[in-house]
């Protein structure tokens, strides 16, 4: 959240740089089976984001010390490809990626019926091929589709989306300029059937009223994203 005012992200008519209104999400397309050697996979394009998720397993968890007697463990990795951003990203250890991997795993563990696969491991690999704000949300969403594509039983899929604030205006589904020059970002992970949450982060500055507005934008965007997910799994586009 830079808070830099020198780029005008929203015009006087409430139209954003990419032509959207404040409550509108970017174009989405989802495709499954994009990693042929994986047990399940999905590619999500969301604005300029291009995200691939692959699932391997359930398989034996090794080394044995990571095994859990009563359930499967989810081994989730979120990673940005070196060419996914304007400035090249050096491969290797990265605190941001570690944290996103952790919260993504915890979100997905909340819905995967891990107790069906004791002592096993399910690997979820999320690769950001091209990034344009909201990659963690696209990653969680794509991973949900890939898990479903791999036939892993879940209580529900997770739909993830982020709204935020730019020039003191709350907008839905931040794009890159809005993320760079905006003042707040609220990504959430929502279960489409119940409206419950499994993922929540936020940083920046939101008054109580603005916070509620951003929350409501996220809740409102769930059903349209969910339709794309279901359609991709059914073999068509939404």
């Amino acid at each position: 959240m830079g808070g830099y005012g020198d780029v005008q992200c929203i015009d006087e008519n409430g139209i954003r740089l990419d032509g959207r209104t404040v409550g509108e999400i970017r174009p989405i397309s989802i495709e499954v089976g994009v990693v042929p050697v994986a047990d399940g996979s999905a590619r999500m394009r969301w604005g300029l984001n291009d995200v691939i998720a692959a699932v391997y397993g359930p398989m034996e968890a090794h080394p044995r010390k990571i095994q859990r007697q009563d359930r499967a463990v989810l081994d989730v990795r979120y990673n940005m490809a070196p060419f996914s951003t304007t400035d090249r990203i050096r491969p290797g250890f990265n605190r941001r990626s570690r944290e996103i991997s952790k919260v993504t795993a915890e979100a997905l563990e909340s819905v995967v019926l891990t107790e069906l696969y004791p002592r096993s491991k399910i690997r979820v690999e999320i690769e950001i091929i091209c990034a344009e704000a909201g990659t963690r949300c696209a990653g969680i969403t794509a991973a949900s589709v890939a898990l479903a594509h791999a036939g892993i039983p879940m209580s529900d899929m997770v739909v993830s989306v982020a709204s935020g604030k730019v020039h003191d205006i709350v907008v839905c589904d931040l794009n890159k300029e809005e993320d760079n020059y905006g003042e707040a970002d609220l990504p959430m992970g929502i279960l489409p059937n119940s409206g419950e949450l499994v993922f929540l982060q936020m940083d920046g500055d939101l008054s109580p009223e603005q916070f509620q507005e951003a929350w409501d934008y996220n809740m409102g965007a769930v059903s349209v994203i969910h339709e794309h997910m279901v359609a991709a799994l059914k073999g068509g586009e939404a």
Partner: protein
Amino acid sequence: MGIPLVPKLLRAHLAELAENDSRHDGRGRFEGRDLELEIDCLERAEGSARVRMGDTIVYAGVKFQIMTPYPDRPNEGGLMCSAEVRPVAGRGWEPGPPSPESIELGRVVDRGIRESGCINVEELCLIPGEKAWQVILDLFAISDDGNLFDAFALAGIAALKSAVLPAERYEIGEDRPLGVAKTPVMCSYHKVGGRFVYDADKREELGGDERIHITLGDDDHVHSLQKGLKGIFTAAEFDEIMVEARSKCAELRSLLDQKLAGE
């Protein structure tokens, strides 16, 4: 923190207590443990604090370095926040590279402070494009009996508010206080026995589910949120703890102001 074997008996016990709306140490659902806050307690640090919440004890220390501003922000100094939980702090903390747990801990505390805008990084610039102060806040746990997040966040903002720029040592003018305009404060809630409680201790952490960390600034503005661990929660549950957090954060903020004003 390795993988603790969550004892099923502990979970059952905590669930039973929850049904009676009580906690294993007798506290109310939104009641914190005994709190001690000490300021300026580290001789070699330019700002420091020690927080004790029950048997959880942490230190925060502020040091300064001279840095070259980043090319794209020539008029700004820097803020770095680092959290370490070394094995001294408990049986479950192991040596080695930072675990995902300690990375999350450091980053969530860092975001709460950074995103509040309490440090004006432009005031840290000495010569644009050439020379600026870098503020380094180190959070260090001595004893972990649960809720390191809140302890680190409170010690961190207290250390920053007490910090003095060591300009004389670097021969660039007179020492002066680091200006810290705002007072972000964190409150954390753990789901234990099916409902959220404030300031969970280690046993509640081990036998609980997800946790939610809320950092609020002046006028109840939200600066950072984080849901950690496996678990599902509803909007209604979140609303309830957000209301609680507003009054608790205000309480902690006034305690801190008191201490800084010299009791």
